[in-house]
């Protein structure tokens, strides 16, 4: 046997070994939540996917519960691809046991059969959470998630710049908001009072404040009502502000553009949910003490209506073999005092009633000049109308609004997305009518 033959044999063996190793590696990547199925012979292992800073809370759980081990995996935020990742993993049979799901996306996850009905495990603990969050995590009388945080909307404003431009108090109504914006524009056209409304999620939140809803259901049928008087009012109001140059055309809060404008003192306010404070504190450390929080302006003086944006629940994903343990963990994440405190430190406003009384929230916040911002959030949360129903095609509505707002005005976008949403729901095979 000559040398070339030996060498080629060796290579063949090597190649075979490589292929086998690859195969074995693929096999060993087993589902990690299978331990619970055979009568809890070993510790239960579960994966939890989300994008909020839940790492520390998961560590706290694991330290206290040695037989139920949870592994946290950070994924992109839901609308930025996280939901797609969950659904794809589920289709491939590798889904996690638990996942962070925003309230407005729960119906869409249901349509894809991705989340489990956890009513029988979770119903007893639900009175720990504020009613609006419980109803946002449920459909009918079935519970599909344990609420973690809520996003009551408020007006964030710069106290120092208000003084500079002679605005004595934050606007209480949208009419005052516009008047203040005009005042600032007259003083300096390069300075903007607020930021534009530029996406579907924003439009939905502002519509919620008007008491209208984009969807309603009757029996097994959906009615789409995106093009309603409330949304039309919101759309033309913000389009008008944009056209008149009263709000920043480019950039809304969290864009680098917003941060740059804010550092230059060129933007005074923005309307957003409580969780936005987390971003403010990390992005604009230099402006500590200058920001304040005020209630969201209303349409009618004293109509007392606020809105909410975002907030999420922990859902149990279809196929999880240990739903009972999964719900135990979800409940810990949302209501354990230490876990809730960790969440608040990370910028979450808890759905837990007890959590809202945490000293971190009821005490003064130095970033907001010692203001007791928890009181403002709580008041806003209590005034959110309970008229809203979430639709079954969350991602499509978001995408279509982004596309339509990029090409035309807000009112035009509303008409367009009304049509495209009815078509999309029909395409899913669900029963739908035009509202």
């Amino acid at each position: 046997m000559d040398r070339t033959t030996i060498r080629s044999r060796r290579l063949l063996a090597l190649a075979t070994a490589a292929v086998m190793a690859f195969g074995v590696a693929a096999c060993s990547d087993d589902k990690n939540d299978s331990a619970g199925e055979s009568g809890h012979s070993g510790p239960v292992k579960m994966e939890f996917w989300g994008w909020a800073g839940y790492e520390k809370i998961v560590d706290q759980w694991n330290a206290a519960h040695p037989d139920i081990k949870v592994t946290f995996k950070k994924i992109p935020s839901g609308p930025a691809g996280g939901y797609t990742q969950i659904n794809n993993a589920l289709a491939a049979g590798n889904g996690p046991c638990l996942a962070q799901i925003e309230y407005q996306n729960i119906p869409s996850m249901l349509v894809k059969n991705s989340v489990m009905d956890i009513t029988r495990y979770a119903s007893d603990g639900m009175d720990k959470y504020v009613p609006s969050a419980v109803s946002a995590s449920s459909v009918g009388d079935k519970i599909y998630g344990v609420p973690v945080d809520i996003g009551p909307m408020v007006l964030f404003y710069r106290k120092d710049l208000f003084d500079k431009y002679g605005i004595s108090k934050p606007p209480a109504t949208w009419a005052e908001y516009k008047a203040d914006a005009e005042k600032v524009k007259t003083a300096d056209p390069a300075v903007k009072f607020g930021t534009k409304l530029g996406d579907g999620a924003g439009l939905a939140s502002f519509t919620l404040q008007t008491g209208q809803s984009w969807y309603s259901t009757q029996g097994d049928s959906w009615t789409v009502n995106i093009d309603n008087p409330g949304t039309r009012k919101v759309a033309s109001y913000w389009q008008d502000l944009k056209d008149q140059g009263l709000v920043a055309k480019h950039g809304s809060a969290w864009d680098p553009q917003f941060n740059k404008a804010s550092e230059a003192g060129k933007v005074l306010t923005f309307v957003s949910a409580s969780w936005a404070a987390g971003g403010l504190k990390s992005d604009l450390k230099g402006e500590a003490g200058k920001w304040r929080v005020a209630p969201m302006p209303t349409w009618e003086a004293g109509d007392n209506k606020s809105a909410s944006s975002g907030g999420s629940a922990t859902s149990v994903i279809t196929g999880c073999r240990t739903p009972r343990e999964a719900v135990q963990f979800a409940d810990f994440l949302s209501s354990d005092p230490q876990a809730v405190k960790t969440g608040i430190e990370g910028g979450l406003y808890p759905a837990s009633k007890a959590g809202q009384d945490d000293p971190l929230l009821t005490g003064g916040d130095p970033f907001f000049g010692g203001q007791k911002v928890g009181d403002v959030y709580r008041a806003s949360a209590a005034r959110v109308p309970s008229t809203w129903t979430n639709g079954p095609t969350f991602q499509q509505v978001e995408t279509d609004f982004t596309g339509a707002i990029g090409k035309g005005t807000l009112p035009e976008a509303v008409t367009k997305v009304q049509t495209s949403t009815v078509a999309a729901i029909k395409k899913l095979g669900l029963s739908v009518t035009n509202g």
Partner: protein
Amino acid sequence: MSSPSSTRTASPPRPAPAVTGRVFPAGRPRRAGLRSALTASGFLAPFAVLFLTMMVAPICYAIYQSFFTVRRAGLFGGTQSTEFTGLSNYADAFGDHDFTASIVRVVLFGCVQVPVMLVLALLLALLLDSRSARLRKTYRLTFFLPYALPGAIAALMWSFLLVKDLSPFTGPLSHLGIDVDFLSPSWVPFSIGNMITWGWTGYNMLIIYSALQTIPAEVMEAAALDGCTGWRLAWAVKIPLVRPALVLTTVFSIIGTAQLYTEPAVLVGARIPGVDPKFSPIMNSTVAMDVGGQNLAAAQSVVLAVITLVLSFGFLKYNQRKGAMA
């Protein structure tokens, strides 16, 4: 006259080395044949396994999926059944204005961007290859460097460079009275074209440059003796000889353009208004997937694959025929 080939890989083409390994002793042809077949399959196995599992199987699965539709009943489609619906997903794909518009958009985009990029790559390669080029290695690396940056990061970087208020270009331009927003709907295709050209010119340049390096020294010498230098040398000798490399880079670019995703997706992710979330065909199927239309997404992917195949192979065939006639 100095030899123009001084920098070229010095050795003249050698006669092909005798393929001693393949000459089997005449007495044992069968065993040797079996052995070499085994060797060959051993070498092929890792590739074949990966190719079958990572390429062929998903493609077959996508084609299979594209012929089915999920039927739902109830408010949330709680009861679902999958049924064979033939070509209805394809009919839906072609009936979807956003999808067809994105195909037209990407084809138009490629018609402009690919030639610009390849002409630029060819020019750079010729300059690097020219006799008077200095700091050859440095320039080669510099031109190639953008390709080393992951596409998503490059797109993110460009989004900062182009977005109004942060861009270092828009400010000075507006002082000159030119008020542009590089990320407004009418500018977006050009901005994306700019990102891709920036990222891929160096890569294509390197392929063309390698081809230039393999031009036999005596051809160049003969050209030089005939008094053919400079641009004339490039046009009459070098470019015709690197034609295969140009065809190759064009085919790669056609495929790359058809799969356009990263740059517009990063811009959409950065919430820049004016970038259509359904800019490219792949983005359309991602959106379809997101709303539970995986069968439609599969059909869209198959349509895109067929178009890419037709365009790239069509171009290849056209060139082969032209090459045969010449």
